[in-house]
């Protein structure tokens, strides 16, 4: 699986939505499924998927799918 596929899979699992929903511009709270509860699940899912420890400040900054890619790039994950 490519990193983009892994990311889409992690998002879709954490938010419990179909993979097609996961587009770069999908933002936090834009859909009812992405709330504070699923956001916390998402953070752990991304950490597990990519084997990284997401910094505290990045938890709030990770507010869209595109933003997630940007942040994960800092952790040397290439998309």
């Amino acid at each position, binding site marked *: 699986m490519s990193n983009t596929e892994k990311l889409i899979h992690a998002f879709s699992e954490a938010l419990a939505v179909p993979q097609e929903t996961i587009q770069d511009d999908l933002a936090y709270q834009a859909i009812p499924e992405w*709330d504070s509860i699923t956001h916390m*699940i998402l953070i752990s899912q991304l950490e597990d998927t990519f084997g990284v420890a997401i910094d505290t400040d990045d938890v709030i900054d990770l507010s869209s799918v595109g933003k997630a890619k940007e942040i994960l790039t800092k952790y040397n994950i290439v998309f």
Partner: protein
Amino acid sequence: MKLFNEIQANQQLRFINEADPGKVFRLEDLSLLSLPGNTRRLALLYLDNTLPAITILLSFLKSPHVCALLSPDLAPHFKDELERRYEPAYIYDPARTDITGYQYAADQPLFTRDTLKDVNIHPDVKLLLSTSGTTGSPKFVKLSENNLLENAKSIAGYLPVCGTDVTPLNLPVYYSYGLSVLTSNAIFGGTLVCCHTDILNREFWSGMEQLGYTSIAGVPFVYEMLDRIGFTKKDYPSLKYFTQAGGRLREALVHKFAAYASEKRYAFYVMYGQTEATARMAYLPPAELERHPSAIGVPIPGGTFDIDPDNGELLYAGPNVFGGYVTGINDLSDYSQPAWLRTGDLARKDEDGFYYITGRINRFVKLFGSRINLDEVEQLLAINLDVPVKAVGIEDKLMLLVTDRPEVDEQTVAALITTTLKLHPSVVKVWTVPELPLTANGKTDYTRIQKMYAER
């Protein structure tokens, strides 16, 4: 009116909408609705925490009418069912533009019922709170103005609430804890900031910085989030105190936040309560946190605890004890406070007089801070399935749906509950067992199921 009069008497009271922090409103600046008041009627208010919603709530507190406070995110079919059952005269719901049988007034954002029937409402009944948020339960807790006022007074009696405070309403006001933050601060506090009920929003933290919040309230999940976003690594010059209620916070976090609070000279209050007591029953004085980290503390001013010698259940008496449940419109005609509120929690008291919760008798599970009635979950399952499936809570972490029928499709059952109750799939699990354990009198043995699950 009594409660509203107290709010109106607070000269320090101001309102700010987080979305537009430059504008400060006094109570008289808000466009409160004028509602006809000859006959007392019922309103269902689906409230988010924005200033327009708070204005509606205040309008109803000013009026003689009774209001039931509900989550705006409730599934549409639950809203329909509630409205069919209660036939409310008024509905406030910013999510809808049209409701059959209701007129929408252009000058006030409120739905009014076409054909009004007179309802017999007891003079003491003022406000209804749901017993189980997401199941759309038709069962409400009946509260009087006196309940609300007395609980607000007790809370302001032990929390350092004052007129210079800037208090974010970061918990939903349809939830008893969130409502108690509103009432106690509207009467005794200063500025109320109507804001996102979600601390993962960047706006909440800009509000903290720009408006200078003096307190934060949170259920255990809020503290889990605060911990994850590095709350304790920073300084908040305006912050005075933070409170925690709505279930037990894990002890590691109690210690972490207690240590942080004492280092920064903030006060951290661990508290205990339930909707049937309007909100609050106990609090732990911050100075006792390190010595009694797992305690719920001592009764609030005006309250008393006792422990039932027969079953170990925690009992509470105080002016904030509710006036009974409502499951239909006819129950509004009565308001009778029990002498002792049976909390449904098992407790013990230590030699210093501090109380500890040791277990639970009631059939509910708390997931991410919201209480879900397990009997109602079973009813929902029974309506939709033709085989018995039982629901149990596992340590407020998981709702376990148990069946002894191998033909049950686990995925279908899980999906039914997660979609109807809007729960995340990670907290609902279907478990097929060879045989459902029964108690001596032939009922489902839930304790045994919990043990079986722990030992699986």
